[in-house]
């Protein structure tokens, strides 16, 4: 056991840092949040990484992965966080991609993996339904076989960024008579341009449009879009969720967030002195950083055991719970730090673009919306209550 970086790893960090500094699009520098960006800007870095061969580091090398060690991946995410890059969205790279290369046919791999790698195809996730959230297996969307097609009917919800999506992956019920609800589900890919698919926006409490309702009405999908075997979709869905959770800790981004919080707390004043000089506030930053360190080393241990051949297991639930708690506390402390200037609401504002009378410091503008938005993290990807159930059942055997 040791924590030293090898000379090769130090060299790797230099290489990665230089690449990001040289290639990250100028106009996206300093843009911290992707919420208000257009489709092209959200894909820009993904496409640059695709050309470099670095867009899917976690994939097996034969599908385009980089073959990096856990330490290299860790360095990679730190260097990206350092520049606040807009990373490839997870729906293709971390979700459907691994499902396709693990369970899909050769034709399917050949058809879909390149577009995920190079960032030319935008994917969205059709899992949750209005009546099937935490109890995902109770989903009601149906896929009925009709010759060479499945016909999909139902409603999905919380479909993140589906307004831009080219393709979607959907969990559908193919056997309504299965003994257990989990046994009659299939994992089906659909071109979002197929007739019968309708995407309607859901506005969230931060004022943004990130999620959608996706309505499926007699959507005809070729049978070759079925992933793996019919009625085995639950297995693939769980595999995907475990993958989703392992990326969810967001350690490097949270470390960057703490740096920014320190900068804000050094600028804001309390009784004429920097807020960071206040013991009370500083103690909260320290507590956050200590908890983040615990999360970081838990993630490193998890990555190391994955590298030793163990896939992401129920331990990834720890990363999800602790990672999202830290992200939420970070945004909460940031809002606390900005004081009165947490109140102004800036979405679509100011319309006149005038900066003659600026409304508070720039770092305050997104503090409240970001705090509101980040409440989603303990709900999505399997709520934190569900994660605790998983740990209780799968690890503790209760």
């Amino acid at each position, binding site marked *: 056991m040791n924590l030293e970086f090898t000379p090769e790893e130090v060299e790797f960090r230099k290489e990665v840092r230089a690449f990001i500094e040289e290639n990250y699009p100028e106009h996206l520098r300093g843009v911290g949040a992707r919420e208000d960006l257009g489709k092209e800007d959200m894909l820009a870095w993904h496409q640059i990484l695709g050309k470099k061969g670095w867009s899917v580091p976690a994939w097996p090398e034969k599908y385009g992965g980089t073959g990096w060690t856990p330490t290299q991946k860790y360095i990679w995410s730190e260097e990206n966080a350092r520049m606040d890059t807009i990373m490839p969205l997870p729906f293709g790279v971390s979700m459907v991609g691994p499902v396709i290369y693990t369970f899909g046919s050769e034709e399917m791999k050949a058809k879909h993996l390149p577009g995920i790698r190079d960032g030319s195809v935008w994917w969205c996730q059709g899992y949750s339904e209005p009546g*099937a959230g935490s109890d995902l297996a109770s989903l009601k969307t149906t896929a009925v076989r009709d010759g060479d097609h499945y016909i999909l009917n139902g409603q999905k919800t*919380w479909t993140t960024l589906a307004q831009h999506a080219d393709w979607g992956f959907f969990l559908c019920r193919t056997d309504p008579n299965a003994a257990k609800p989990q046994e009659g589900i299939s994992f089906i890919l659909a071109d979002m341009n197929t007739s019968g698919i309708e995407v309607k926006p859901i*506005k969230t*409490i931060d004022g943004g449009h990130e999620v959608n309702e996706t309505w499926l009405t007699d959507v005809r999908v070729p049978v070759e879009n079925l992933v793996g075997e019919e009625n085995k979709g639950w297995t693939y869905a769980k595999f995907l969720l475990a993958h989703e959770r392992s990326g969810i800790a967001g350690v490097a981004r949270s470390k960057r967030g703490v740096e920014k919080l320190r900068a804000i707390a050094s600028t804001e004043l309390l009784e004429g002195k920097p807020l960071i000089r206040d013991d009370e506030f500083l103690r909260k930053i320290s507590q956050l950083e200590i908890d983040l360190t615990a999360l970081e080393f838990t993630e490193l241990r998890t990555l190391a055991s994955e590298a030793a051949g163990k896939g992401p297991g129920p331990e990834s639930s720890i990363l999800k719970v602790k990672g999202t708690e830290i992200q939420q506390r970070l945004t909460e402390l940031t809002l606390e730090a900005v*004081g*009165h200037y947490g*109140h102004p609401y800036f979405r679509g504002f100011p319309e006149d673009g005038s900066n003659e009378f600026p*409304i508070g410091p720039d770092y305050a503008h997104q503090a409240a919306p970001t*705090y509101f938005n980040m409440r989603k993290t303990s709900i999505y990807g399997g709520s*934190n209550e569900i994660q605790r159930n998983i740990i209780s059942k799968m690890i503790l055997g209760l």
Partner: protein
Amino acid sequence: MDFSFSEEQTMIRDSLARLLRDQYDFDTRRKVVESEAGWRPEMWQQFAELGLLAAPFSEEDGGLGGDAVDSMVIMEEFGKALVVEPYIPTIICAGGFLKHAGTPAQKEEHLNAIIGGESVFAFAYAEPRGRYDLADLETTAKKEGDSYVLNGHKAVVIAAPWASHLVVTARTSGERRDRDGISVFIVKKDADGITTRDYPTVDGRRASEVYFENVSVPADGLIGEEGKALPLIERVVDEATAAVCAEAMGAMGVAHQMTVEYSQQRKQFGVAIGKFQVLQHRMVDMFMEHEQSISMTYMATLKLDEDEETRKKAVSAAKVRIGQGGRFVGQEAVQIHGGMGMTDELAVGHYFKRMTMIDSEFGNVDYHMRRYTRLTGEPAKVAAE
């Protein structure tokens, strides 16, 4: 000891609750908040007709002779309906300054117009670099002949876009954070030299950045004694803090109630999610937070007229509990609603947002914890052996 409400207070509560139920449902509120004006002057008139704007003023001042408990009752109902109209800035703050320190002429000029609903006030006290410290002022007022000349920048002045008048705190002498040298003025918002930058707030209200550039205020715009206003400001802000605590306790109760109801309807795994013990206990914790917030709001409200130290301790203790309780109840309400709690469509998220922002009004948890600790931190007279 008596925690019951008078007949008048119960009447105010009932008639206000009925008005808000009929005319301030969540969809109506949403339309108002998204409209260009952002509020309803005609609703303000109805508040005037109901006597709400007269409630906490003495009969000789033209009011109904009520007290802080009347304001508490009103603010709790406002909190339940997420009312955006500026009761605290106009009635509690401006009204409070006039009530405690206004000359007969000032009362004559302003109180009738406030009670009648014709004048609307905003309270310009916060500054970009002052945080919650009421004495940390860079805005200045300089005596020139018979008037004062104001210069400075006031931050996040809630309700300023709707206001006809501003109450402004400014330094007439001394250094930036001195307790002495602070004065309070009433200024017409359309006075020469005032510029505002108006904007919506994240919880559905409106506010402004207000800039004063050589704004001339006649000497009769000064409220109270020149340079000695800080104790008066602290008293009024404590009254406003108690009022915002009452608003929070109203909002907290509704958010809790909505969550309990949702958990009884929402089924997952074949049962209502309210059957899961892990959620039951959290909703019980929310309930206890709400109950304790009620207790603390009553306590602080009833101590507003006691000596300065008692009042400050009581108000700070209440605001600490309300800040912590509001945060817990708001976060859990969203969490237990799941994805639905994140939507703009459901009311619960808007209660969460209002409770969040209440923490940073008139001093947040840390500010009030610090004030409480400073008031109580003297070593005991007889040290333990």
